[in-house]
């Protein structure tokens, strides 16, 4: 499949295009707009607590989405929170895919006892529900950013390992792999130069679907105060803090809640769209 065909299909897939546009919008919002916002996300101002949203009446100089219980600007917190969530999600998905792909190819290529060990390892991680596993590890290791990234990665690498393994196993027995074995190629060359390029499609599809899950899990952990720690904002901990005041000041939960929903929806659209585009045989 060459690039122009893929691009043509992408343009025809409404899911993919909508998802892509929303994600591009979110990226501009969280990475570019914050430098134009007047207030800092962690700047307290106890004279100005619970101000209602100014919307855009004062431009970016006002409190676009009001202020919270410590007088911090909700709009600024929302954007910085999104920046953290997106960056963490990217790092985590990247690590998950690297770990999962390497283990999966090794399992699928060698088979036998190595395959059994890696697959049992996957089953053990799968046997503990994601959020429970993440909470237990966070509780024991302590709450900080690197532990959060470790926990999110650890809880989610299994899917890509299983997918890679099943695909690698199929490719391994094809003629061109046998041919390069006969030509004396080393194992690592066969695994990463011969097999890997032939199984990138399912890995790309899976990676795009992992973003939504990762952001969901991070929000849940932050909501339970086990993820990103205040005063650093994240959508999860903003909802958690805003919950106490939501009856009177609903924007405190609506702003992060809608942002969270929009973000996951967009990533799910991209994931589904990408599957339609790259793997047209299996339509969902």
């Amino acid at each position, binding site marked *: 499949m060459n690039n122009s065909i893929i691009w043509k299909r992408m343009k025809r897939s409404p899911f993919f295009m909508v998802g892509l546009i929303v994600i591009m919008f979110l990226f501009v919002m969280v990475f570019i707009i914050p430098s134009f916002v007047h207030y800092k996300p962690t700047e307290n101002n106890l004279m100005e607590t619970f101000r209602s949203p100014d919307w855009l009446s004062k431009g970016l100089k006002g409190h676009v989405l009001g202020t919270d219980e410590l007088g911090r600007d909700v709009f600024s917190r929302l954007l910085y929170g999104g920046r953290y969530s997106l960056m963490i999600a990217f790092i985590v998905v990247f690590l998950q895919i690297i770990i999962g792909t390497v283990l999966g190819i090794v399992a699928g290529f060698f088979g036998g006892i190595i395959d059994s060990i890696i697959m*049992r390892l996957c089953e*053990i991680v799968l*046997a503990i529900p994601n959020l429970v596993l993440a909470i237990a590890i966070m509780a*024991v290791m302590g709450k900080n950013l690197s532990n959060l990234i470790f926990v999110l990665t650890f809880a989610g690498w299994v899917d890509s390992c299983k997918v890679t393994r099943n695909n690698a196993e199929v490719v391994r027995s094809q003629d061109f792999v046998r041919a390069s074995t006969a030509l004396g190629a080393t194992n690592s060359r066969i695994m990463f130069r011969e097999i890997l390029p032939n199984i990138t499609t399912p890995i790309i599809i899976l990676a795009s679907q992992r973003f939504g899950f990762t952001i969901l899990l991070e929000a849940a952990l932050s909501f*339970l105060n086990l993820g990103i720690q205040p005063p650093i904002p994240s959508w999860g901990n903003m909802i958690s803090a805003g919950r106490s005041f939501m009856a009177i000041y609903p924007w405190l939960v609506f702003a992060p809640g809608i942002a969270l*929903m929009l973000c996951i929806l967009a990533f799910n659209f991209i994931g589904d769209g990408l599957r339609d585009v790259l793997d047209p045989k299996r339509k*969902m």
Partner: protein
Amino acid sequence: MGHFILRRFVQTLIVLFFVTIFAFFLIRLAPGNPAIMMLPDGAPESAVKEMEIKLGLDKPLYVQYYKYIKGIFTEDFGLSTAYKRSVGSIIRARFPYSAKLAIWSVLIGCVIAIPLGIIAGSRQGSATDFFAMMFALLGQSMSPVWLSVLNMLVFGVWLKWLPTTGTGSYKHYILPILTLAYPMAASIARIGRSGMIDTLSEDYITATYARGLSKFKVNWKYAFRNALVPIVTLVGIQMGSFLAGTIIVETVFGVAGIGQLLNIAVGNRDYALVQSLLLISSLCFVVINFIVDIINSFIDPRNKLN
């Protein structure tokens, strides 16, 4: 069939064995001495030693592991450092609340989602299909964090139809159950739909049409059965993870189940409790998956081969 069940059973036991090892060592990575945490601040050295002996911390690791495994079989999970009660009795008191939430939300989710998914899949491209998929995509994108807070605000605070927290009457369960059921219904509907679409394009379905069977009969008698396998698998996974911890929903709505307990235990640094909850949740999960595999092998005998 017997051979298949036995093999799956042994696999399940092996996985559970490794989960116990994982849970056992995870807790030992925790900073701080549990014996000191059981005692008031500034307890003398001798009291700490005594408590270590009482908790069995003076023994070598493999003895501690043996005791811990023996404890699992005799329902003696040790002492909760925060509650000063046996972990078993705390969990037993709270488990029914989580089970109630899990069972009801799975039931309601299935009742809504299975017909929706099947109808959407058999009328691919229709308006029904479009709306069903919008419903599903929105549901899959709803974080439990946001959905539970939103439901509470709309139905509890603004409309005042339903109570917001606690477990007094059946009304208290409606919001948590709906919050859990919606995202689940969404994924069941999607998997049911894609299962239907896959099955309806198979040759044997064309063959049943050729024999003159009605569309209704083909959909519900032949295609449905095939589409059911992934649905049962998914319901099993969902049910297992619900039992394991509807942590967010229970915390928001103040349901005194094991999910809320896990959150509290983490806050209290009550490691014995965290460890047992980890173990119990994966036990639920693994046992339900085992049952699901058996059910699926009855629905579709081909599954045994995998």
